[in-house]
């Protein structure tokens, strides 16, 4: 970490709550960077249902406008 890093500064805070908060944060960032906190990724195909609903609503709107 560089000396200017604000996380490092808060790790040395005199406020117990802030120090403990940033200590926890530091651990979680390391955890994430090691890939331990990753979740299942979304694929474009997962949006098909949503796209279908939006299309149906657009068609309904057009029918109401034209009718």
């Amino acid at each position: 970490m560089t000396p200017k890093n604000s996380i490092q500064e808060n790790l040395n805070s005199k406020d117990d709550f802030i120090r403990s908060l940033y200590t926890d944060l530091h651990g979680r960032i390391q955890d994430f960077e090691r890939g331990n906190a990753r979740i299942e990724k979304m694929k474009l195909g997962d949006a098909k249902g949503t796209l279908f609903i939006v299309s149906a609503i657009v068609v309904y709107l057009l029918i109401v406008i034209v009718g």
Partner: protein
Amino acid sequence: MTKEQSSISKDVAFGFLPAQKNDRVFGLWDLVLIQVGIGVSCFCLLVGGYTGMMVGAKEAIATILFGNALPVFLIIPITIYFARYGVDTFIAFRSSLGYLGSNIFYFIFMILTIGYMSIALFMAGQALVKIASFLSLPGFFTLKATGAPFFAILLFAFAFLVTFKGPMFIRKFNMIGVPAILLVMLGLISILLFGQGLDKIFSLTPAEPYEDTTRSFITALEINIGLGFSWLPYLGQYSRLVKSEKSAFKAGFLSYGILVNIAAILGALTALVVASLDPTDWMFAIGGTWVGLIGLFLLTLGNLTATIFLMYSQAISFKTVFPKKSWLFALATAIPTVFLLLSSVFYDAFNSFITVISYIMAVFGGIVISDFFFVKKQRISFQDLYDTKGSYYYWRGINPSAITSFIVGTIAYWSLYNPILDKVSGMFLYISAGIPAYFAAGICYYISSKYVFSFKVDREEQRAIAVPVEEKIL
């Protein structure tokens, strides 16, 4: 540290820290239920009420469905960001707006929340005025000009005390308040279906349309677009706690884009029947004396719960952004709400409020989507989101591309529609204003970040293309 202070500290830490695997407790339907519980509120009823005053039932349903589903569809991909990194809105938006820019966005969220709280409280105040009239209380309590502000401020004080007590007390209160608003909806559905009948409702004409039917239709659409975009700052709160990115995406769309529309449609149909947009006028008109009284009581309870939820949400978000400030200071940010409760001016201008929100959130929506998906290409420095002296410092803490895009989005919106004076340009009748402002801001942000104010952090994705990127959506 007292038990209450300890639970507040836990909530602050929970909101500030990125979610870990064991924090991710929500599946698709858990999240849908929670978000619908939050989203189905008096605001949806009121937006529906405005819609039903301008257009007939068929047009109302079309404008509500489209006006909410499309804006939510345009902004909901950002939930992938919240879910992937497990961070809340105001931490996540640092990558596009800058550290100071994201704090400014928090203050806009605060104004939005103050506006929402005052609408909920004033509506509750009006409901209590009607109950006071029924009970033949003295004139001060039964007049809208004196009684509604009095009851609304009294309820604000109660909400402040409950919120000050912390989350344990709020959760107990929510167990009464959320079912109350759902009972109001159920009552409205029953009365509309069995008391009036759909054939009659679909044959009714709106009470206060514009002279031009196209103008009525597009204005009703714009108010609903405002409601759709207004969910943007609330999306991160629970999306970061899901087990998969697709659950955050689908649940966000289903709840805010589709299911909360039930409340708005109910509002529109009731406004058509009663010829008033105010939910407190509906209860006696369609329910009779006793059902009306119960309805008004439940509406008061529902609005009070909504206020407590919003107040707590605002204070916790404040502590997430400024963790060193005290809990009382964070809570005191809700006090300006009282000024909006002194008369009905703000409550009566709800349609202008929601359309102004539409413009602001549409512009921010365009910026954050453009940044995450097209400029950063989903590559975020996790450490820099929290290191406020890191890469997302940009220029004095604000991203100049975000400022430029905000200005361009503002010009696009206000040249099409002036929501304060309710003046429109010819183009507004064809393309509305919120959605064009979203695209204007998004496109401007992309061009600005790539070719005008191009920072190192905006160019880093180009280097990254050479290596496999497993966390991108395919």
